């Protein structure tokens, strides 16, 4: 038996998570018996059609929604304790920058709330802005930046207080493909240099396969995991690998999983 490296710490341990709610049209099973383990340093993508529960799963981990049953431990604590301990940074589909604050002040927002000193706030703001290649835009206002740049600021803001976890909910969904490719590369570099655990929700198969170490394929009604795929592309990959046969094989596996869980004829 070969020597396996020491098992990494589990950052997310979800056991049998279910979430149902009532609507005027009856009960909806947003999540149904979901089991998931995420180790430190992994890049996990969630992919699936609308209504499959991938965003809901992310929000449950973030304690923005509560499951109706099951157990969940985030960074060794309950989800709520993890939130109160500021263990994660959340990046939404929209940049959600405050239009009345400059870029710099927007970056400092979480730091102000969490009580960092002024000097520390300034240091971190400058550092993380340079990490996303936006040095020089400190005094600008959000509306003066393009959509892609705003989203980069949003990512910098999520990293500014150095959380263990980065939760991203379709962050590049509203951007065009060219900008998206560029940001995918930047995100990959960021992940390598910071070593954070990233949970990433997306609609795009190439994006999921390109970025992740693990892909979770989900399907709707009820929301559940269909397949978990491990990918181990080389760490310094570039966008060219999207045409290689290994990439296409994994993408095909994802596609099969998606089709198995959801038929458009219903």
């Amino acid at each position, binding site marked *: 038996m070969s020597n396996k490296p020491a098992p990494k710490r589990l950052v997310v341990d979800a056991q049998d998570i279910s979430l149902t709610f009532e609507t005027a049209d009856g009960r909806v099973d947003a999540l149904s018996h979901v089991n998931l383990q995420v180790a430190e340093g992994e890049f996990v993508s969630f992919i699936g059609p609308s209504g499959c529960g991938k965003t809901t799963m992310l929000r449950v981990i973030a304690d*923005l929604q509560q499951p109706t049953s099951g157990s969940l431990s985030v960074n060794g604590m309950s989800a709520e304790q993890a939130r109160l*301990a500021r263990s994660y940074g959340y990046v939404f589909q929209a940049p*959600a920058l405050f239009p009345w604050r400059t870029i710099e002040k927007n970056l400092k927002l979480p730091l102000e*709330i969490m009580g960092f000193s002024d000097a520390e706030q300034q240091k971190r703001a400058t550092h993380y802005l340079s990490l996303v290649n936006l040095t020089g835009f400190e005094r600008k206002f959000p509306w003066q930046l393009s959509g892609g740049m705003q989203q980069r600021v949003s990512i910098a803001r999520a990293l500014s207080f150095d959380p263990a976890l980065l939760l991203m909910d379709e962050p590049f969904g509203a951007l065009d493909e060219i900008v998206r490719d560029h940001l995918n590369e930047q995100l990959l570099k960021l992940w390598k240099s910071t070593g954070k655990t990233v949970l990433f929700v997306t609609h795009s198969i190439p994006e999921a396969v390109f970025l992740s170490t693990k892909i979770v394929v989900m399907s709707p009604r009820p929301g559940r995991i269909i397949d978990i795929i491990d990918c181990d592309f080389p760490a310094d990959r570039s966008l060219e690998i999207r045409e290689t046969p290994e990439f296409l094989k994994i993408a095909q596996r994802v596609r099969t999983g998606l089709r198995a869980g959801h038929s458009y004829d219903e």
Partner: protein
Amino acid sequence: MEPRKLRLGLLLAAGAILLAFVLPIAPNAVPLRERPVIPELCGFAVVLYLAAAWLADRRATIIGLVATGLSAAASLILLQDPIVAGAARSGFWMIVIATWLSAALCVMNLASARELRGERHRIVNLLVPLLFGATVFYLWEVGVRGFGVPPVLLPSPSAAGARFFNSLPTLAEDFTQTFIRGVLIGYAIGCGAGLLVAILAHRFEFLGRGLLPLGNFFSALPLVGIAPIMVMWFGFDWPSKAAVVVLVTFFPMLINAIAGLSASGHIERDLMRSYAASHRQSLSKLYLPAALPFIFNALKINATLALIGAIVAEFFGTPTQGIGFRISTEAGRMAIDMVWAEIALAALAGMAFYGFVALAERATTFWHPSYRT
């Protein structure tokens, strides 16, 4: 504007002035050509009208405006003659028609200008309503004085203006009583209270859901009717007027502030939750800044409502000063020019107050999309 129409109009204006030389100005009045300055003014005006008619394009506007000024001056000087004032005949009215026609043509020419940019565009945008307003005032003046309308019915702008400047001490007293004491104090208390209650209603959802329909109900009521009751509680002097203003300004601020505080998007609210921010932090960093456009909307509405409330409250009884008091007593005494002077004061105060709030709004909500289009 079509050059042909412009040309025709200006030629008619020139013709009207020429007619004024032959038609009678007023019964038993000295004819036009024998008067000292006026024939020269009219002559110049005719020449400029003809020149503008010949050009009939954008430059014609400036020439036309100068000519308008000249003929307006001619008619106003004519009115100084006591024989003319009150009994003006066709000759006089020809000059007025010429002035009016050329002013209207210039306004129309300016208003239909489309290709201007930036600075010039802004100047024209300012000039058009100003010229329009000036023409209305001019017609008012010559109409009242030329037809001899009794001043109790409608005083001329010059008479009202003269009365305004002659009564500055009284006006200042009334202004202090109504505006500084009644309006400003009531406005500050009413808007402040409305904002505080809205913050509470935002914090405690049950309170908010109960207060909002009530607020909508009360803001539609004729709250100025509460004035006699306030007089009973607070006496005749300014506190009762301030109390009316408090009530009148409270509800619009409450409704708008509640709307503003719930205007933050749910993504931003989730963001604050993900930072485990306390309610106070969320309030000062997200909810209040996002609510500022709504709050300023209410502040602007309240600026006008407060002034109206204070003045109308004074109609119900007040000591010996105040804008409302002066209006009702002077109206009763048929001193209409004083009433107009007070109205002018109220109008100026209202516009200045509103303008001040609008400037403050611009400074603090510069980030709102409505300023960027």
